[in-house]
């Protein structure tokens, strides 16, 4: 073990420039990985709030008695897919219209009766905000006596679903690509170092060194490269996050709510280290000793 550690650190110091460059290349790749992760993570947080804004509107038939309306509300409240029920009477619907539409007075001119229906606004539980679930709920509710029509914004449901799926897909694709890039950098560096040490390896073999004894410092060196890359990436991420949070957010408010989970730091270091080891493992494994 003493030899393996000593040999690894000696090699890192001896070939410091190639090692520093490789670690920086790994850091840059890991940075892209973090930016991708943050985009996916923050988008996930943002889209997670969208189902709360989504609602199904149930238009009730005219001339329902208060008891009949309460019966419908009770039936809805008993369902396990509904998070909230809000009843809006005809009069309230008219008031809302007047409040929200500036030209309401002109529009309503000449109309004596209240043209609005009373309706119920439903908030669905998060897991039921998908097109098929909403369609099923809507169809069920239509069967209730006293319900005239149901309405929900199909395109919003579809958009939420599409955005979530695409962002996750792109995120996973990018993370996979970057992982391959980090593995390749470590692979190439260790392979170069390996070729430079051919004579040394030949001597060790003649002295009775096993393959594992020869390979171990290279594997460790790959891990150290990844570790250094991870540490560089942590510094880069912290600097970039500070700049975004405290400089850019003043100019672009979209950055105000950006969240950086602290777990990303150990994740970066461990990922760098692991990918470095995988890269060097592949590099050494493919070479005949």
């Amino acid at each position: 073990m003493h030899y393996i550690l000593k040999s690894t650190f000696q090699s890192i110091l001896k070939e410091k420039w190639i090692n520093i460059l490789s670690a920086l290349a790994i850091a840059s790749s890991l940075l892209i990985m973090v930016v991708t992760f943050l985009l996916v993570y923050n988008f996930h947080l943002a889209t997670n709030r969208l189902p709360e804004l989504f609602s199904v509107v149930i238009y009730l038939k005219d001339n329902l008695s208060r008891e009949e309306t309460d019966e419908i509300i009770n039936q809805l409240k008993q369902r396990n897919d509904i998070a909230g029920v809000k009843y809006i009477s005809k009069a309230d619907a008219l008031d809302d219209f007047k409040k929200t539409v500036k030209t309401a007075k002109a529009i309503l001119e000449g109309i004596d009766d209240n043209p609005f229906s009373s309706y119920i606004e439903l908030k669905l539980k998060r897991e039921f905000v998908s097109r098929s679930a909403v369609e099923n709920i809507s169809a069920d509710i239509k069967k209730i006596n006293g319900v005239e029509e149901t309405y929900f914004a199909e395109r919003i449901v579809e958009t939420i679903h599409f955005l979530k799926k695409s962002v996750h897909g792109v995120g996973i694709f990018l993370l996979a690509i970057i992982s391959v890039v980090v593995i390749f950098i470590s692979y190439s560096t260790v392979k170069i170092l390996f070729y430079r040490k051919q004579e040394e390896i030949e001597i060790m073999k003649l002295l009775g060194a096993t393959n594992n004894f020869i390979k171990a410092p290279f594997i460790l060196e790959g891990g150290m490269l990844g570790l250094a890359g991870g540490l560089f990436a942590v510094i880069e991420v912290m600097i970039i996050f500070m700049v975004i949070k405290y400089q850019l957010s003043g100019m672009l408010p979209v950055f105000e709510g950006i969240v950086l989970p602290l777990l990303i730091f150990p994740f970066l270091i461990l990922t760098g280290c692991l990918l470095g080891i995988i890269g060097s493992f592949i590099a050494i494994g493919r070479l005949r000793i």
Partner: protein
Amino acid sequence: MITFNNVSKSYNNITVLRHITFEVKRGEMVFITGPTGSGKTTLLKLIYHAEKPDEGEIRVGNFKVTSLNKKEIPYLRRNIGIIFQDFKLIDNMTVFDNIALSLQIRKAKDINNFVYEALKKVHLRHKADSYPKILSGGEQQRVVIARAIAAKTELILADEPTANLDPNTATAIMQLINEINIQGATVIIATHYRELFRNTWKRVFRLDEGNLIERVT
């Protein structure tokens, strides 16, 4: 200790060793001689499995060398101290580290003591922290000997141990190898310098056109 039974080796249809059969007993010291290119180094390489024979059987101690698999080769080599003609020292390691490496490979304990003891025997204790490149040829050869004897193996192979050395240094090196043999190690020396074995009573084999002929004294 070492048995060659009907061993042949050729390169590109040129026979280097032809049906060689000989035995070296434990604690013995023998010379393999012959002109440059006669197959002395090949014969040594067959012993530590750096080359494979075309036919025949080789045994070294408990190892049947000719039927070793790849994973067993390092364990054979750990039982042999090799003094290479071209030294085979690692330039970016100090003298101490070069010797220590051979002990680390063997998973030895108390490495510091073993290294300094070996360096003391070759009178290079003061060069422990030097790098091989700044040493003279004689000093490098002594480091190689120190590396070969540090692990106290029972078998020492020396390939042209005095090549390119001045006569005084060559004599000192041979004295060292003699001492190693006196202490119990089996030693095989491959050399083309007649001076090394002219007055010896030890067995001398000559390689002549692939045949191994023992000198009759």
